[in-house]
């Protein structure tokens, strides 16, 4: 019921419009109050009638706000004539309110009077009654001025006023909000919201705006939730708040995520100066860092930390103690530097870990965890690499065919218009320049006309040369490794430092010398730089791979030798133990023999080949790091310094001439990274600390190389674009991963672990740990299942099934590829068709234009395209307005009304002006609707031809 009532009054107000306003303003306060009460709900009416005054009193403060608003508007009045209406509105409200107050309350009257005085800063302090009259006058003026179109505003105004009076009551009687009041409140909230929205274009000072804004916002905040009831209200408020918070949080989180991409700025900076190819290296480095961080997490979280925290401390058992004969030298730097002494017996290496089945209060199964982490590292890396490759290949084929308008696109679309930071802008300049250079290179490559025979000959020659040098380097390594085995038989002290480190030295040297050599040879081939990079990568890959595997074979020789000696020692210790037991039992005449009381440092122990292998890998990595960093320091930095500063006093131009600045060697760096990773994968099983070392190394590399490349290198002479995806790098990495997987898995599966060191000591094979766990810790049926699963009868079908699955998936992917190309072709066809159609349309338009050229009034007719429909509408409209007109028009051109469309198009007769009239009408949509002078003029113009 109440809402309906409200609706009624609303309609009433709308209908009556101005008159009602006038009545209220001029009429007595009683009437005004009645009206305002009319809007309130019936049941409350009476109570309100009595309490109104008191409420007024109570809510004086709250009334302050609207009053202020009024004040402001008043002030504006003086400023602007145009805003008369608005001002008047507020003044009116003010006045009515003031009058009400005058009748009811002395204090508020004083206050409001003061307000008025303040408002009339100009000194026009007018008594209240005068003011009221003034308002009425203004009202009268305003009536004339305001057209019908102000009706809406009026209505709004009206509502505002009544609302502001009723809001005071609703404030005080929040508890007993009726539906009607709710609706009012709702509207008021809307009003306030609107005020907030339109506050910006109010011509007030900032301070004022802020105050009003704050008030309005507070109001909205307070009452928005009140639209529901009781619990619902609070829930609503809560919901609104939460959604806002959530949206904000989401936005912040997105920003945060972007800001968290490490080194993004650094890489972008490099990219803008050196092109995408150099940047691709750094992106690859960053990716590698992420991968290693995860591996590091596995290794330290599941293996190293548990052993350190829960395992036996250093010195408790022989494997954790430096042997007596090594102890005096164990802290020497030269020993530590080669990872002997304390390093060798630390958590960095395999030997340190104990073979206790469970450790600590958590009963952590360390040996099992060690094995699983060792294998899991490979599994995880494999997964990540393959997934990245798949994603890259998806990105690669997004269908944007290049080559058609490369230069135009670069020209028209390369600038990023959102850049607002001068530094970024500099980078963007550089990158645009670089990208232009890249396209120039591509372009030159395309246009090269070539002597194909010479080219072929040169390429064959280059490949022969490179094969020769590959073979040479392979032989060199073989030779050195053989020699090192001879050295190993000799006494350690007789050898010089060089002889001890010959293998590492030669390998690093080869890695240093060969790539530039290959690059020089590759000049003969004259490939596009992008292809040349791939060749170069492939060749260096072959070189490194050869080196690595030679190294591995040498290592295996060593391992078998160690295994032999280990057997001897094992037998010897067992023999000694038996001796001891026999002696003990005969001496004390007891069978209860306590273990021999020997200090852990004095126990005889085997060579522990796993730790030896680990040490080899760590040494290799360290020497690799040294060589890489020194190369950068000398080859790039020193060279740059010399070129830069010696240039002042040198015979020729060093910068442009011979030494010049170094270029960033992409292929070498990428492969260095890949092989480094390969060695990490291989070595991580035998030296858990290696992963941590590698994380540190990559972190340093990132900063060091970024600095080096920005400080001492110059962009490549022929800057070229990296291929879209760096799947080539990934492919190499995958290959290396597989190749490093082989030896590790081989050793795990075939070699027996050392008897006195490492988590698997005492076991026949390393994987026995798994079997043991299955047998002892898991329910027996799992063991049975496992037994069946390892049965060859099951494995063979499984393999067969997998082969079938691969075959099937392969077929499916081929089918998809086919479908893909078909769809692409179809799309192309559709596009062509579309183009043709558009062209045809153009041509018809052309015909139309030609036709119109023949017309007399052509210059007056607005462009015909897309504007044909409006005229008939207008004509018809006109027809309905004045029936007379239709026959007139029809008679004039001798055609039916239906044909008027053609007429308006062709406009070949006196109706020309009529068709023209809609022009201005139709064009600016703003004028089309609503009673405005425009149409009147149009009609007027339309008349003459009728007569």
């Amino acid at each position, binding site marked *: 019921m109440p809402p309906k009532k409200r609706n009624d009054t609303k309609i009433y107000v709308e209908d009556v419009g101005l008159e009602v306003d006038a009545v209220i303003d001029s009429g007595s306060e009683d009437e005004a109050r009645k009206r305002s009460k009319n809007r309130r709900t019936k049941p409350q009416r009476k109570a309100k009638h009595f309490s109104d005054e008191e409420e007024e009193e109570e809510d004086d403060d709250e009334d302050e706000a609207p009053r202020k608003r009024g004040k402001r508007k008043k002030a504006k009045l003086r*400023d*602007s*004539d*145009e*805003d008369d209406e608005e001002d008047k509105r507020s003044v009116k409200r003010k006045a009515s309110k003031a009058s009400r107050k005058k009748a009811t309350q002395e204090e508020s009257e004083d206050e409001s009077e003061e307000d008025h005085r303040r408002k009339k800063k100009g000194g026009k302090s007018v008594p209240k009654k005068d003011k009221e009259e003034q308002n009425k006058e203004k009202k009268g003026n305003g009536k004339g001025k305001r057209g019908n*179109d102000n009706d809406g*505003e009026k209505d709004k105004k009206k509502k505002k006023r009544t609302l502001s009076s009723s809001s005071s009551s609703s404030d005080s009687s929040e508890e007993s909000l009726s539906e009607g009041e709710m609706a009012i409140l709702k509207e008021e909230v809307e009003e306030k919201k609107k005020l907030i*929205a*339109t506050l*910006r*274009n109010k*011509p007030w000072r900032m301070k004022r705006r802020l105050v009003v804004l704050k008030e309005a916002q507070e109001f909205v905040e307070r009452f928005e939730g009140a639209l529901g009831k009781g619990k619902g209200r609070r829930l609503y408020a809560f919901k609104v708040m939460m959604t806002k918070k959530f949206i904000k949080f989401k936005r912040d989180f997105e920003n945060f995520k972007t800001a968290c991409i490490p080194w993004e700025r650094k890489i972008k900076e490099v990219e803008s100066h050196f092109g995408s190819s150099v940047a691709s290296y750094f992106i690859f480095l960053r990716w590698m860092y992420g991968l290693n961080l995860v591996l590091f997490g596995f290794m330290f979280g599941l293996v190293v930390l548990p052993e350190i925290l829960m395992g036996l401390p250093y010195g408790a058992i022989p494997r954790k103690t430096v042997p007596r004969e090594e102890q005096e030298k164990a802290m020497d730097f030269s020993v530590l530097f080669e990872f002997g002494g304390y390093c060798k017996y630390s958590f960095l290496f395999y030997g340190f870990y104990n073979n206790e089945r469970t450790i600590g209060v958590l009963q952590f199964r360390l040996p099992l965890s060690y094995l699983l982490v060792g294998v899991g590292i490979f599994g995880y890396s494999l997964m990540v690499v393959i997934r990245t490759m798949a994603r890259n290949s998806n990105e690669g084929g997004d269908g*944007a065919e290049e080559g*058609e*308008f*490369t*230069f*135009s*696109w670069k*020209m*028209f*679309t*390369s*600038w990023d*218009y*959102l*850049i*607002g*930071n*001068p530094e970024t*802008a500099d980078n963007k*300049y*550089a990158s*645009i*320049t670089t990208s*232009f*250079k890249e*396209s*120039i290179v591509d*372009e030159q490559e395309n246009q090269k006309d070539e002597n194909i025979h010479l080219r072929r000959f040169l390429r064959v020659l280059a490949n022969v040369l490179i094969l020769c040098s590959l073979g040479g380097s392979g032989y060199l390594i073989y030779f050195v490794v053989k020699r090192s085995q001879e050295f190993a038989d000799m006494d350690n002290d007789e050898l010089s430092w060089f002889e001890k480190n010959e293998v590492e030295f030669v390998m690093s040297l080869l890695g240093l010398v060969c790539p530039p050599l290959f690059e020089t040879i590759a000049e003969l081939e004259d490939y596009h730089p992008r292809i040349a990079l791939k060749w170069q990568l492939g060749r260096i890959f072959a070189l490194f791979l050869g080196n690595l595997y030679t190294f591995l074979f040498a290592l295996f020789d060593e391992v078998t030798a160690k295994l032999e000696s280990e057997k001897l020692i094992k037998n010897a210790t067992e023999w000694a133990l038996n001796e001891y037991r026999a002696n003990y039992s005969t001496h004390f005449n007891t069978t209860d023999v306590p273990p021999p009381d020997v200090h852990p440092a004095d126990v005889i122990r085997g060579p522990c080949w796993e730790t030896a292998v680990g040490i080899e890998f760590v040494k290799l990595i360290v020497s690799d790091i040294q060589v890489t960093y020194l190369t950068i320091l000398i080859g790039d930095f020193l060279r740059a310094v010399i070129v830069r500063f010696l240039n002042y006093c040198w015979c020729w131009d060093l910068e442009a001439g011979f030494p010049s600045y170094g270029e960033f060697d992409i292929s070498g760096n990428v492969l260095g990274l890949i092989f480094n990773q390969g060695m990490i994968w291989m070595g991580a099983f035998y030296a858990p600390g290696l992963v941590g070392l590698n994380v540190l190394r990559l972190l340093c590399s990132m900063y060091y190389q970024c600095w080096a490349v920005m400080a001492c290198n110059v962009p490549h002479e022929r800057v070229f674009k990296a291929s879209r995806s760096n799947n080539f790098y990934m492919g190499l990495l995958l290959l290396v991963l597989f190749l490093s997987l082989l030896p590790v898995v081989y050793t795990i599966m075939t070699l027996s672990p050392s008897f006195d060191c490492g988590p698997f000591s005492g076991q026949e094979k390393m994987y026995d740990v798994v079997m043991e766990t299955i047998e002892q810790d898991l329910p027996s049926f799992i063991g049975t299942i496992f037994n069946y699963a390892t049965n060859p009868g099951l494995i063979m079908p499984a393999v067969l099934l997998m082969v079938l699955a691969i075959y099937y998936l392969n077929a499916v992917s081929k089918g998809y590829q086919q479908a893909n190309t078909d769809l692409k072709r179809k799309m192309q066809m559709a596009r062509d068709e579309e183009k043709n159609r558009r062209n045809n349309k153009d041509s018809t338009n052309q015909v139309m234009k030609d036709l119109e050229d023949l017309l007399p009034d052509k210059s007056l007719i607005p462009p015909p395209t*897309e*504007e*044909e*429909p*409006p005229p008939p509408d207008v004509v018809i409209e006109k027809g309905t307005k004045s029936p007379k007109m239709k026959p007139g028009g029809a008679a004039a051109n001798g055609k039916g009304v239906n044909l008027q469309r053609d007429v308006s198009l062709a406009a070949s007769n006196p109706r020309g002006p009529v068709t023209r009239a809609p022009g201005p009408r*139709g*064009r*600016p*949509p*703003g004028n089309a609707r609503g009673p405005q002078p425009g149409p009147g003029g149009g009609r007027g113009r339309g008349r003459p031809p009728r007569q």
Partner: protein
Amino acid sequence: MGSRASTLLREEEIEEIKKETGFSHSQITRLYSRFTSLDKGENGTLSREDFQRIPELAINPLGDRIINAFFPEGEDQVNFRGFMRTLAHFRPIEDSEKNKNPAASEPLNSRTNKLLFAFRLYDLDRDDKISRDELLQVLRMMVGVNISDEQLGSIADRTIQEADTNGDNSISFTEFIKVLEKVDVEQKMSIRFLH
């Protein structure tokens, strides 16, 4: 103070702008406040200097061209209406607008109008053709002195060669449209105005 009155945004004005440009009410008021904050002279119009104070435009190689686009020919002041008309080019095309009947006059933010706006940035002499010289000027702005004039010239030649279909050694608007056919102009030349 009296002059400020003319800068006030009236409801009718908002309505008109709304109809002309398609911006929503709150967008208009928001942009109006931006307009007034840019308006350092406080005279209800923006001058070139006002625009140059925007950092994004100040460092943009084509900034001057963009600023020029705001001003009607021969004038160096732009009022709020004009300001909004130019900005309307960058209003994203909404889904509801896509399937509106094509008979209505083309909105300012249509693909063609967006492209035309871009085209005007390059077409300095407003002869509806981008000539080699105009391209060279733009190129020089974009790459500075890092590439030799000769190479720049060849880039400009290549660009024209790619785009030019009727052999007049310049790029007309239709050719320009064709070049950028595959570029997602609707999305790229749209600014997400806050509501």
